[in-house]
C-alpha cells in the first residue's frame, strides 16, 4: 500500500465507528478524510471548533466565503441546519461532553491511553489549539494514524513527548489493525489480513493483548 491508500483505508475504518445522529469533531489531515466515507443514509453532524456545527464539504472553486472556514483555516461550507456560535460556546460543547467522538492524529500514543500530538520540544511547537479540550471532553477519542513513523513505533509503553492528555484515548486505528485501550492494556481487536500478528508486534513497542476472538479488519 502506498501512503494515500494507507490513509484512505484508515479513514474508511474509522468511519465505521460513527453512529447515526452522532456529533463528531475531526482533526486536521488524515482524520478529515473520514467524512468522505460516511454512508449517505447516516446523519452525522460535524463540529468545527472555530464556531459551528454542520460542517460540509469543501466549496467549489469560486464559491468560497471569507467568513466560513474550518478549524484548519481552509474555506468550508455549512450544511442546512448548521449553526454558528462563538469559541466559548464551542468549547462548552466540547468539554461538556456534547461531542460523541473526536478523531485525531498522534505523534505517540501509549498503553495507558496517553496521547502526545502537539509538540516536539526544540523542533516543532505549533501549539495545542483545541486538541487538549477535545481529547478531554469528547465521549470517545479515536486516534487515526499510520502505525509507525517511517518504521519507528508510535504505539509505545510510555509516551516520551509532552502529553496532549492523560488516559483519554479509547481506540487506535492504523493500517495494520484496530486497537482498543482497556484497563488491562492494548487489545488488538481487528487485524488487517495483509499483516501477521508478529509483523504488528515487531513495530509496536507497547504490549499487545491478542484476544481469542481477534477479527479481520472491517474495511
Amino acid at each position, binding site marked *: 500500500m502506498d501512503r494515500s491508500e494507507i490513509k484512505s483505508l484508515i479513514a474508511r475504518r474509522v468511519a465505521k465507528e460513527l453512529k447515526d445522529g452522532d456529533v463528531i469533531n475531526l482533526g486536521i489531515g488524515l482524520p478529515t478524510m473520514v467524512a468522505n466515507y460516511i454512508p449517505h443514509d447516516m446523519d452525522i453532524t460535524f463540529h*468545527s*471548533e*472555530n*464556531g*459551528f456545527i454542520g460542517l460540509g464539504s469543501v466549496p467549489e472553486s469560486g464559491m468560497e*466565503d*471569507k*467568513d*466560513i*472556514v474550518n*478549524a*484548519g*483555516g481552509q474555506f*468550508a461550507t*455549512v450544511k442546512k441546519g448548521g449553526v*454558528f*456560535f*462563538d*469559541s*466559548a460556546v*464551542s*468549547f462548552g460543547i*466540547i*468539554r461538556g461532553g456534547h461531542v460523541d467522538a473526536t478523531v485525531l492524529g498522534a505523534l505517540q500514543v501509549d498503553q495507558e491511553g*496517553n496521547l502526545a500530538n502537539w509538540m516536539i520540544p526544540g523542533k*516543532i*511547537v*505549533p*501549539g*495545542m*489549539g*483545541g*486538541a*487538549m*479540550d477535545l481529547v*478531554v*471532553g469528547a465521549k470517545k477519542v479515536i486516534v487515526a494514524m499510520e502505525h509507525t513513523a517511517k518504521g519507528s513505533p508510535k504505539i509505545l509503553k510510555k509516551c516520551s513527548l*509532552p*502529553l*496532549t*492528555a*492523560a*488516559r483519554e484515548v479509547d481506540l487506535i486505528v492504523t493500517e495494520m489493525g484496530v486497537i482498543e485501550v482497556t484497563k488491562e492494556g492494548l487489545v488488538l481487536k481487528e487485524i488487517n489480513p495483509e499483516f501477521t500478528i508478529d509483523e504488528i508486534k515487531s513495530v509496536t513497542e507497547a504490549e499487545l493483548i491478542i484476544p481469542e476472538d481477534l477479527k479481520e479488519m472491517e474495511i
Partner: protein
Amino acid sequence: MNKVVTIDEAVSHIKDGMTVMVGGFLSCGTPHKLMDALVKNGVKNLTIICNDSGYPESGVGKLIVNRQVKTLYASHIGTNSETGRQMNSKELEVHLIPQGTLAERIRIAGAGLGGFLTPTGVGTIVEEGKQKIEIDGKVYLLELPLKADAALILGHKVDKKGNIAYRGATRNFNTIMATAADLVIVEAENLVEVGEIDQNDVVTPGLFIDYIAFGGEN
C-alpha cells in the same frame, strides 16, 4: 454620544506596551483594517491575546512580522513561521494556552468571575504552576481570568450604538473579547443606523463597545 471614528483614529488609542486582544480565528473574523493601521502607525512592545498568530501576510501575524509584539498569548502559532522563529530566538515571549481555556479565561474576565475549574490540561505541562482542585473525585485545574487594556474585534453589521450582528464563523473570540477589555473597538464591515439590525439578531450589545471604527464600504 458619537462612537463612530475613522480606522486611524481608532488605533491612535492603542499605545506602546498595551495588552491588546484581537478577535479572529486563522484570520477569519479578524479586524484586518485595524491590523493594517497598527502596522502603519508602528506601536510597539504590545502584548497580544489572540487565538493564533495568523499568517505572516495576514491578520495579527503582520504585527509579529513587523516586530511590534513583545508577548503573545495564543493557542496555536503553527501557521506563522515567523512566530516560531522569534520565539526560538527569544525575541518574542509566547504563552500557549489550550483553546477552550483561552476562550473561557476571556469569557469569565468579562463576566466578573475570579476563575474556573477545567479538566483540560490535567496530566500535561499545562498544569505546571496551577492549583489542582478535586471535585467529586475528578481533578481540575484552576484557571484565572484574562483581561486586556484594549480589544480589537470585527463586526459584520454594526449600528451607531455599537450593537453587533456577526456573519458565518466570525464570532469566534470577537464576542467574548468585547466583554473583557477596558477599551473595546469594533471594526464595522457595514455601519448602519440604530434600528436597522433586527433586535433578535444582535449578538453583542452596544454597551460593551467604546468605538466603532469604520473605513468605508469594501
